[in-house]
């Protein structure tokens, strides 16, 4: 029997993954949630038909939004993760003993329940006593927070679905306000390769660049993303991702990683020419 999951990356390109079976399907208040079992990527979850993460490659996301800012900011106590419904990013941050508080905000609590059931390893992030879960809209949650967090991670990936509000100027502004004077925000920056993704990517950089004194972009290779290539944003009030990078501190921690290294940290900020160009164009606007 041939059973394939397909996702259109553009109108003319699709990625297909052979599926052993579908484990779950339901419609939440916000989106359709499906879970599949596959030989190549293990279990993976899709929201409205788009792959959100798979067991095979979610370590890349989780490490890149954690260790990059953690190797730059010298003293992190409070972290906020927005849209971190699977718990993977919280789990990665909970490996740092000096962090006192990790708040996770996710509007779709059904998604959280599904992750807990089908991805218990990832969802372990929620078990750490420092991790607090809030079922709330990200923008609404941020409104009352001022000068509070050291790091904010926007772990939402879709600038067009129900998380659209997390890719807006008001969101970046709210994060700026909620961060301390030396706070850092990292966020999913999308994929710049296909034309239809490029505009979203440009608009994110334009807004972040205007909202924060330091705004740089870094990259990773993630097989299930459009074109397999993914960007992250690093927006910061004080620390520069390379000038204030302290590789020795990370090395001394002896944390085992599968994607992140201190060499890769530097390399991740070295972008292809076409990406540099489009980012610079937005900075000049």
């Amino acid at each position, binding site marked *: 029997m041939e059973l394939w999951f397909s996702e259109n990356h553009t109108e003319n390109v699709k990625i297909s993954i052979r599926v052993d079976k579908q484990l779950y399907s339901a419609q939440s208040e916000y989106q359709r949630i499906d879970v599949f079992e596959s030989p190549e990527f293990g279990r993976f979850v899709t929201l409205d038909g788009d792959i959100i993460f798979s067991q095979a490659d979610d370590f890349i996301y989780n490490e890149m939004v954690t260790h990059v800012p953690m190797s730059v900011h010298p003293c992190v106590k409070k972290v906020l993760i927005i849209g971190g419904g699977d718990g993977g990013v919280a789990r990665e941050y909970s490996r740092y003993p000096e962090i006192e508080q990790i708040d996770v905000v996710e*509007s779709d609590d059904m998604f959280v329940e599904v992750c807990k059931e089908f991805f218990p390893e990832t969802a372990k992030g929620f078990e750490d006593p420092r991790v607090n879960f809030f079922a709330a*809209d990200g*923008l*609404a949650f*941020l*409104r009352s927070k001022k000068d509070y967090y050291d790091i904010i991670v926007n772990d939402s990936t879709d600038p067009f679905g*129900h998380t*659209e*509000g997390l890719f*807006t*100027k*008001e*969101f970046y*502004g*709210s994060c700026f*306000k909620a961060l301390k004077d030396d706070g850092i925000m990292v966020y999913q920056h999308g994929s710049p390769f296909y034309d239809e993704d490029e505009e979203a990517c440009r608009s994110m950089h334009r807004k972040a660049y205007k909202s924060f004194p330091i705004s740089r972009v870094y990259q990773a290779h993630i097989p299930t993303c459009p074109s397999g290539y993914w960007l992250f944003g690093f927006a910061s009030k004080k620390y520069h991702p390379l000038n204030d990078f302290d590789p020795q501190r990370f090395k001394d921690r002896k944390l085992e990683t599968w994607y992140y290294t201190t060499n890769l940290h530097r390399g991740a900020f070295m972008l292809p020419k076409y990406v540099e160009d489009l980012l610079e164009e937005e900075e000049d606007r």
Partner: protein
Amino acid sequence: MDLERQKHAPIYEALERFRKQRVVPFDVPGHKRGRGNPELVELLGEKCVSLDVNSMKPLDNLCHPISVIKDAEDLAADAFGAEHAFLMIGGTTSAVQSMILSVCKKNDKIILPRNVHKSVINALILCGATPVYVEPKTNEQIGIALGMETDKLKKVIAEHPDAVAVFINNPTYYGICSDLKSVVEISHAAGMQVLVDEAHGTHLYFGDELPLSAMQAGADYAAISMHKSGGSLTQSSILLTNNGVNADYVRQIINLTQTTSASYLLLSSLDISRRNLALRGKESFAKVIEMAEYARQEINAIGGYYAYGTELVDGAGVFAFDVTKLSVYTQGIGLTGIEVYDLLRDEYDIQIEFGDIGNILAYISIGDRKRDIERLVGALADIKRLYERDGSDLIDSEYIPPIVVKTPQDAFYSEKKTVPLTESKGMVCAEFVMCYPPGIPILAPGELVTQELIDYILYAGEKGCSLQGTEDPEVKNLRVIDVK
């Protein structure tokens, strides 16, 4: 309301039957179900262009309804609790003008507040009636004109017992409602008909906790903007009549200016929107109220802004407040409404209904979602954080009482000359000057130009209001009556 009957949508059903018949068109429109204009089909979709058909026997004719349009109008009348409903396709402007033209002839007096939509005064230019204004009270804090006070109405009626009608806009754009029931009683007792511009009040007919609608209050005519809170397509509207108004005469009046090629897109949108409101309106507007109340609470929690609500109710100028409206006073953060309006669009990709000198209005409707409200509130919070300033230099008054010298018609058709706006003090204006939206004239034909008005117009332009109404597109010059 007969809920079983309301499940029908006669125009929509007739269009469906017609579509299945696959009739070969040798009539207009010439695009022939879109085949002659592929680019139009690409833009609007096949289904949409195939519904763009001409009046014909199976589909009735809006100029003289005898079958499916008549049925649809009967259902609309039933849904709104009126004796008769007219489907209108020239916007609520056409509904407002038809009701005025049905009641007023040349030299008749009509009593109305001055803060009406320009379409009302345009109707007076057309028919030659004389406006008698009831001065609205202004709320000093937020600088908006309030509703019609019954004491003032009684006084004006006593001074002008020969007036034929009382016209009232209820609710106002900002959500202010008057004591409609008393207005109707007082006017009827004086033998005057009551015309209600209910452009911002379609939903009043479908909510348990909303202010009284015009038909409930016993008014004779009401113009309902179905395309605003009712969900139909832009330009579609409904005119309601009651109390034995001669519907056949009203139809003749409508036909004076209405197209003979009525769009079935607009008509069917009215039909299915009426059905939707009748069957699900209460439930939908309960959600709208909940969203608007949530937004009000969150916006007021930001500080600086004032999203007003039922606390304004004082039994006179504000008899009731329409809680579906989200009007916000912005000068508390040192910005005019129009500045906040521009920032929302240019910096935050959020388009709201309008901004004026002191306020913004965000239109909340059956199409909104909670997460969009969060964006609006988040953006307002961010605007305060980034742009707040000292606002002591801001002008706050929105309503400047007019000094009427001539009727709108006399002034409009007088010998005119063009003078620079800044030099027009003391002259009689022969055209409109307004900010659009909201489209309430700052100056109307026949009114005296004062320095205060000139300053206000210049200020509104400087702050970024879209000034309209004058022959001069730049609004630097004004047409005034030429006294030789």
